[in-house]
């Protein structure tokens, strides 16, 4: 960038009112004055060198100046540090000798006097202070006129109470003066107040203060006027003016209490049937272990009866109750249902008894009431202790025997048999015989009335076919097929066959007769053999035609085929349609069920077989008779085996 171009630019800048650029050749000074002067200086090599030298010199100077400045600053800092270091060491050290100790004996003696005087003065001052303190000793008189913010009654306990000045602002109640209070007492009062608030009902009609004048809605007085605080003032002698106040309050309180006691004494002893809510303790019923059950039951019974036996006098009458024995058995049955009631009743009974005992006076009405109560109570069946074995009574037996489905079936069957018997008994001997047998079976089944238990005797195979049939039926080993229908079908079939046979023989007979007649008439003798054959063939066809027509009619009206599809598996069991389908399917596909299904099926079959072989009265399993009894036993958690 040469000076000429710069100057040119400077011209423009000048025109724009901007700061001119420094021209390299020009001297430093001419900033303010016009650059025209600068132009005079020739920009030669010398001038430029000079300028360079100048610049270099200036630079060196500046550097030097800076160096000097820094040195100076370092020196100053050094000096300051040194001064500081020595400053810390100034003062008297331990080893330094005290200036005063340097005093000679004479001067020390002089100062000694002064020192003595000073000690004296301080001692005197102390004494004066102590004397002042002693003079300012407080007595009870000083407290005269000071209020105490508590009820006087609360100080009657005799304990020492420490009262402190109440915490208020300095200027708050200047005219009232200071108040004393005991913090712990204040706390107690507050607590009491809160408890009262919690306890007190909004309106208590018994809480009428007769001595005080009546004020309407006095309970709100506190809220409106603020709390009335019990305050008393200490007098000079330390006694209070408001002794009356102390004595009043407790008297009132005592009076009310006495009244309460009277009321209590007058009130009849509580013999409500309902426990007070506070007394009730609900005990969560635990799961009883079956092992301990029986023992506990026995305990319960014992307790109950011990209580009964323990009472004496008029209570003795209750135990003498003939009804108890009668109801024993029934009680056993409904034991489970009435367990809750039992508890309730016993507790009620105990309560009533206690109430009666408390009353003592035996007025005639009371006795009557007592008797009535006893009567109602004796309706409740009671226990007899002792029998813990399994009891099979009429009801469980009856329930065992009860099988509604079977009863209905039997009824229907009986009705049918009866109707059939009437019109068929004359038909053939065998059927009649069978029917009579069945009738006898029915007669065996029917009479519930004269049987004590309602259970029929089990039939024996040795008694005959009918008995066997009954036995099997009872045990559901054979289905109760509708025998009469089958019988009817069978008879019709037989009838049809007989008819058929009869017709056939009839035809044969007729044909034979005709042939005889023809031969006898000699009509055929004239004819040749061929002709004879021709004629006989003709006759035969005619006969056959007739025969077939007749047979056709016979079949049409008389033939009722009984189609029965019966499937039998490899073991010889008859299968129902579903099983048969499965079996056939398996056979067709050459592939049976899997292991699980097969096992299941085999198990089922074995079960069925076992059931069929089981005895009706086998108590070890829950079959037939023993179900109800065993159920009862389980419910009552009794162990027991039925032997017969």
């Amino acid at each position, binding site marked *: *960038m040469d000076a000429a171009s710069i100057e040119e*630019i400077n011209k423009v*800048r000048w025109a*724009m009112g*901007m700061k001119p*650029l420094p021209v390299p050749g020009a001297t430093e000074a001419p900033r303010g004055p016009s650059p025209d002067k600068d132009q005079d200086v020739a920009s030669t090599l010398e001038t430029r060198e000079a300028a360079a030298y100048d610049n270099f010199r200036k630079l060196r100077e500046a550097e030097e100046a800076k160096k000097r400045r820094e040195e100076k600053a370092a020196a100053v800092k050094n000096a300051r540090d040194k001064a500081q270091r020595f400053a810390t060491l100034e003062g008297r050290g331990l080893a330094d000798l005290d200036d005063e100790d340097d005093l000679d004996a004479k001067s020390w003696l002089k100062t000694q006097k002064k020192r003595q005087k000073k000690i004296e003065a301080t001692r005197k001052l102390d004494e004066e202070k102590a004397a002042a303190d002693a003079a300012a000793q407080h007595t009870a008189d000083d407290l005269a006129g000071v209020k105490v913010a508590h009820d006087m009654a609360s100080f009657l306990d005799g304990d020492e109470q420490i009262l402190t000045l109440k915490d208020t602002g300095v200027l708050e109640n200047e005219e009232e003066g200071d108040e004393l209070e005991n913090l712990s007492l204040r706390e107690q009062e507050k607590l009491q107040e809160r408890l009262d608030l919690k306890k007190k009902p909004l309106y208590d009609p018994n809480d009428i203060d007769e001595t005080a004048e009546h004020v309407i809605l006095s309970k709100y007085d506190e809220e409106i006027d603020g709390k009335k605080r019990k305050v008393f003032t200490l007098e000079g002698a330390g006694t209070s003016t408001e002794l009356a106040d102390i004595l009043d309050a407790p008297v009132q309180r005592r009076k009310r209490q006495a009244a309460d006691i009277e009321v209590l004494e007058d009130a009849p002893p509580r013999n409500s049937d309902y426990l007070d809510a506070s007394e009730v303790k609900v005990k969560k019923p635990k799961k009883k272990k079956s092992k301990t059950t029986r023992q506990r039951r026995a305990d319960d019974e014992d307790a109950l009866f011990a209580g009964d036996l323990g009472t004496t006098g008029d209570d003795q009458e209750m135990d003498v109750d003939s009804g108890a024995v009668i109801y024993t058995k029934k009680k056993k049955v409904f034991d489970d249902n009435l367990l809750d009631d039992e508890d309730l009743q016993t507790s009620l009974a105990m309560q009533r008894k206690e109430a009666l005992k408390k009353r003592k006076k035996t007025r005639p009405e009371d006795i009557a009431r007592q008797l009535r109560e006893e009567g109602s109570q004796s309706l409740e069946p009671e226990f007899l202790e002792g029998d813990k074995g399994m009891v099979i009574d009429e009801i469980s037996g009856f329930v065992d025997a009860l099988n509604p489905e079977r009863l209905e079936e039997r009824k229907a069957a009986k009705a049918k048999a009866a109707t059939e018997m009437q019109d068929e008994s004359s038909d053939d001997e065998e059927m009649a015989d069978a029917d009579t047998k069945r009738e006898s079976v029915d007669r065996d089944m029917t009479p519930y009335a004269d049987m004590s238990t309602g259970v029929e005797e089990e039939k024996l195979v040795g008694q005959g076919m009918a008995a066997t049939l009954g036995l099997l039926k009872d045990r559901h080993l054979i289905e109760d097929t509708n025998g009469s229908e089958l019988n009817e079908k069978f008879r019709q079939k037989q009838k049809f066959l007989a008819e058929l046979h009869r017709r056939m023989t009839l035809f044969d007979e007729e044909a034979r007769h005709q042939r005889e007649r023809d031969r006898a008439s000699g009509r055929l003798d004239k004819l040749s053999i061929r002709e004879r054959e021709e004629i006989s063939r003709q006759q035969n066809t005619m006969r056959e035609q007739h025969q077939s027509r007749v047979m056709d009619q016979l079949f049409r009206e008389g033939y009722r085929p009984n189609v029965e599809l019966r499937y039998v598996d490899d073991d010889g069991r008859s299968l129902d349609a579903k099983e048969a389908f499965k079996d056939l399917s398996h056979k067709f596909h050459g592939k049976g069920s899997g292991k699980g299904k097969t096992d299941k099926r085999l198990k089922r079959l074995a079960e069925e077989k076992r059931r069929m072989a089981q005895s009706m009265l086998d108590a070890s399993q829950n079959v037939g008779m023993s179900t109800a009894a065993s159920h009862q036993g389980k419910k009552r958690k009794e162990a027991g085996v039925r032997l017969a």
Partner: protein
Amino acid sequence: MIVVTVNDRLGTKAQIPAFASDLVKHFKIMVAMKVGREPHEILLKRQGERPFKDQLTLADYGVSNGVQLDLEVDTGD
């Protein structure tokens, strides 16, 4: 004083002395003088950055001695 190189990448390249404290507006006048184009047609920018604004100084854009600025035609928008 700084010397700024202004280059439109089409063959025009100029070196312009200025103070860093000069406004871009004034600097553009200098450029105009050197390049022969109207000042309002001049748009200066650093390479790859946004154009300079007239009201700011060169120092504001960090232009120091020997910096090259791109010169473009300012179409006014």
